[in-house]
């Protein structure tokens, strides 16, 4: 196998890393914003956030094409003003990956923030801590196990994203051929060995991510359980 053949690995890692960073920040922001608030329409907003989890990836891809396609509402504007084309580019792959992994991050972090005892945050406030400080010193560290789980799941989901990516970014060797893409088109063209190679790589990546997360959270749950025991 030539050296150029490794581009799917680096591209996949790049796309997953950038998308996970975006999703991590956005997921935490929205989850923290909504976690302890009750208002009319909250469940509608949460349903919209979680929708990509239950929709077929092709539907997500179709929606993204409508939005980011060359004649799409946002795509047209981006092309005219910034000369940025989303379709058939690795940025398209990032966007597809963000949309499908956001629900995982949102769900994990919302659950994590809801479990942070409001009295701890209130105690911090009575001691003069600003909301910003309360977030960084109380909510964030106490929610961290859940946030980390969301991070790893989002990364794994981003790494494996196929359907929506294919529709938005297409398959352009050297440009948008992430590992799942490379597997599909290798099989299509009868290169079973090449496909098997990428399958092994992606299984190894996914497996190590989940194994590490399990190991880490078990270790931490034990510590956490001790801390909570009074």
């Amino acid at each position, binding site marked *: 196998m030539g050296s150029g053949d490794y581009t799917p690995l680096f591209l996949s890692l790049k796309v997953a890393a950038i998308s996970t960073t975006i999703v991590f920040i956005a997921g935490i922001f929205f989850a923290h914003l909504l976690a302890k608030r009750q208002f009319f329409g909250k469940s509608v907003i949460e349903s919209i956030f979680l929708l990509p989890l239950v929709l077929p990836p092709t539907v997500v891809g179709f929606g993204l094409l409508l939005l980011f396609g060359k004649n799409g509402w946002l795509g047209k504007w981006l092309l005219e003003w910034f000369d940025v084309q989303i379709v058939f580019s690795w940025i398209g792959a990032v966007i597809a990956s963000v949309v499908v992994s956001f629900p995982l991050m949102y769900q994990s972090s919302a659950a994590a923030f809801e479990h942070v*005892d409001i*009295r*701890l945050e*209130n*105690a*911090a*406030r*009575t*001691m*003069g*801590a*600003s909301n910003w400080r309360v977030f960084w*010193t*109380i909510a964030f*560290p*106490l929610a961290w196990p859940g946030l980390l789980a969301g991070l790893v799941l989002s990364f794994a989901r981003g790494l494996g994203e196929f359907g929506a990516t294919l529709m938005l970014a297409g398959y352009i060797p050297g440009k948008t051929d992430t590992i799942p893409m490379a597997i599909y088109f290798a099989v299509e063209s009868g290169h079973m060995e090449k496909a098997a190679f990428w399958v092994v790589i992606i299984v190894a990546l996914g497996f190590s991510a989940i194994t590490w997360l399990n190991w880490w959270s078990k270790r931490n749950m034990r510590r956490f359980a*001790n*801390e*909570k*025991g*009074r």
Partner: protein
Amino acid sequence: MRAVLDVQIQKELPHFDIDVEFKANKEIVVLFGPSGSGKTTILNCLAGLEQPDGGHIRLGNNLLFGEGYSMPPQKRKIGYLFQDYALFPHVSVEKNIWYGVPKKDRPKKEPIIQQLLDVLGIHHLVKKYPHQISGGEKQRVALARALATEPSLLLLDEPLSALDEETRWQCQDELLRLHQLWNSVPFLIVTHDRNEAEKLGDRILHLDKGKSIKEQNR
């Protein structure tokens, strides 16, 4: 002379309305009443964690609530000892105690904190985590943490209810001693235990369903 703390608030709750009026000087005032008589809600209103529907709260020369204004809890300078202490589980006792002291003030606050640690006898606990210490020790740490900010009023919500009987007696004496040392500020203690109310309170306010039904001076 004008009282240090002047409270007159109303608040609607699902099953009854709170409507209380009381003043406190540099003394221990006990809010005494059965569970569910609105005692904790009153403390929360004073601390700014809940909003009354009307009335006013004054502490010293500051208006904390009233005339369409509500000071945020961060600025009220009120120490609050929560029922089960609400110590931060993920940081050491030392970090818990220093939490409310701004970084720039830390060198000059050192003597005050040391004195608190002395008085409460918790020097040996500073490196431990909350889950490693006993209930009575947690109570002392929480007291130190609340007083470290040098509040103008200390609120204590059932401060001793989580302790066994013997520790409770000890801690009652300690609270009295602490109040003598810090007697520049009023202590407002919530309890449903009559003996405790009588032992600690300079003044006892009997509450039932959000209303003050009797005031008893000692």
